């Protein structure tokens, strides 16, 4: 049986580059495809999705959209090896590049505290996280076309707190941030998103999020993560951030200060992260006062699905509060540290907002 041309292209880097050169006659062209190729892709896409959803494939395919077609071909050749059992995922990991994290790398390389059965005390299960990464890759790559800058500011080890702005009817911005950190840090660091107290109460969602690394936001949980030197992501606005009016978009709301105290106490670095796009992508139309599962309100989005707004993420320079280590109990010091992060993030947001040319571009 002759494999589909689309699949063959990805299985053989040489074939890929030669066919591309043949079509366009431009050795530098690596990204364009003819309409025939697009049609072929549409025909085989369901097959590819089936392959993607196969449990074995999920461990090795992340298929990030990358302009370097040869690189993608390498990844698919690698996938074929895995299907035939010729190589392990880790043995043929592609060279380091941005947006290259495969699910296998999450499962194998990302450091986490395994308690003996493949789970940590908070329920994180890297293979599940890897599957989610594979399934969400089209959203990250194609739909929201997430671009980010400054990942080098995220330390490769040690206790770190990512402090970000929060918006949108549902926390798509949080998911995109976690995706971005996972895919761009080298070696991969699993961001532990800190969620509100009601999240574990929500059936299915609470369990699923905990497998993906989300941790309920209690002081003890966060302290333990920092003690272990993990990377955590906090949205100090809490639920007030997504609940704000559209006219207040990108204005940081009331700011909780607990993260600053914990950062001082556990000598963690704070990386301010500004996320642009969530406000316009899926704004909140209304809040129903239904407190299901302890949630403060039931969000009613302005439209049923988020708009394909271009998400932009910027990591600011790390703020080091280690010099305040002895003053973690001083409320004034803690409030000042939190205010400093607030000011930095506000400025970062304003700069990004003024610099962008349009919400979809």
């Amino acid at each position, binding site marked *: 049986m002759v494999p589909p041309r689309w699949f063959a292209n990805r299985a053989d880097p040489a074939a890929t580059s030669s066919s591309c050169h043949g079509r366009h006659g431009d050795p530098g062209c690596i990204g364009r495809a003819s309409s025939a190729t697009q049609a072929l892709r549409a025909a085989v896409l369901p097959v590819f999705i089936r392959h993607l959803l196969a449990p074995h494939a999920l461990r090795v395919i992340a298929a990030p959209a990358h302009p370097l077609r040869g690189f993608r071909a390498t990844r698919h050749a690698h996938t074929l090896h895995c299907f035939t059992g010729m190589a392990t995922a880790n043995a043929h990991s592609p060279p380091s590049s941005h947006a290259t994290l495969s699910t296998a790398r999450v499962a194998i390389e990302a450091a986490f505290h395994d*308690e*003996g*059965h493949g*789970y*940590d*005390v*908070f*329920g994180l299960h890297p293979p599940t996280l890897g599957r989610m990464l594979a399934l969400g890759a089209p959203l990250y790559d194609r739909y929201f076309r997430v671009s980010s800058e400054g990942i080098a500011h995220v330390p490769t080890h040690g206790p770190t707190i990512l402090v970000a702005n929060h918006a949108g009817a549902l926390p798509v911005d949080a998911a995109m941030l976690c995706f971005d950190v996972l895919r761009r840090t080298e070696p991969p660091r699993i961001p532990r998103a800190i969620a509100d*107290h*009601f999240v*574990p*109460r*929500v*059936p*299915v*969602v*609470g*369990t699923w999020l*905990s497998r993906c690394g989300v*941790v*309920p936001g*209690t*002081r*003890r*949980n966060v302290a*333990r993560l920092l003690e272990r030197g993990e990377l955590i992501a906090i949205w100090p606005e809490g639920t007030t951030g997504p609940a704000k009016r559209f006219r207040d978009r990108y204005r940081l709301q009331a700011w909780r200060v607990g993260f600053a105290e914990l950062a001082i106490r556990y000598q963690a670095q704070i990386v301010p992260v500004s996320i642009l796009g969530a406000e316009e992508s899926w704004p909140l139309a209304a809040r129903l006062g239904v407190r299901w599962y*302890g949630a403060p309100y039931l969000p009613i989005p302005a439209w049923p699905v988020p708009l394909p707004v271009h998400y932009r993420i910027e990591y600011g320079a790390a703020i080091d509060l280690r010099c305040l280590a002895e003053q973690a109990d001083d409320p004034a010091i803690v409030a000042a540290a939190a205010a400093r992060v607030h000011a930095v993030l506000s400025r970062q947001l304003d700069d990004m907002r003024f610099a962008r040319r349009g919400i979809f571009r």
Partner: protein
Amino acid sequence: MRVMVTGASAPLGAAIVQRLLAEPGVEHVVAVSRAAAPRIHRRLFHRTADLTHPRAVHDLVHDAATAYGVDTVIHAAQHRDPHEVGVPVHTQNVESARWLVLACAAQATIRRFVHRSFADVYAHRDTTSALIDEDAPLELAPGAPQWLRDRVEADLTVSARPTGRLQIAVLRLAELVARDTGSQLWDYLSSRICLRPIGFDPIINVLALDDAAAAFVAAARSSATGAFNIRGADTLPLSRAIVQSGRAELPVPGPWLAPLYRLRHAVAGFEFRYDLNLERFHFGGMLDGERAARELGYRPSTRVVWPRPWWRVLLQRLAETRS
């Protein structure tokens, strides 16, 4: 070290006695149980006593102190049936602990008292941390079942006692998965089909009998006082525990579980009570064993032996024999 162990006929008490006898620093062990038992070791002495009577408790402690020179008391006796309620159960779980600790405080030779408590004393709610340390809130809800209230009261009765000459350590054990220990999880996993609340798969931590015994011996040796969480070496989702036990799981809506398990108890006589485990089966909650590791030197090392069906055990043994 001369140690007296209550509840010595139960699996945990027996494991503690065995472990103590293996310790070189233990001169002799006085094993207390309701029924007489044969003397199997030259350093082991048996005493029979009914701990539900204050006079018996007083006499037991007095004799142990004067005749055997006991300096450490490990109180591991507990009522095991969660379906029994009433004054006798309360007396065995709470009053016996009170009488025992008071009698020990009155004896000059006894310097250490180690009390068995349970992870159930903590309030497992969605607002509590996934990791439960010794300062976490206790289950003091007025509507809590007697089984829980007794455990909390006994824990507080012993741990709230001011530390003087008698050093008191309270060990709050994670769920002990072993036969005849009163383990709710063992009973739950012993049925062919385990019902689980739909949409929830909490992370649980379970303790092996050997680790529990090791924790008691470590506490007896140490001079640290206060409450200590004793966690086990197995941390896994409930669904995984069901798989490990070779059982089938059936997710059903949460509100159905309590009546279904009540019906099961009435028909088949299972001990598992869903109302005792409701919060835990939704939100999990794991003991933070840092303090026990730091002050008692206890770290879990033994994996739990899951309650597998007999044919699976047989297959496993055959496979082991072949290999």
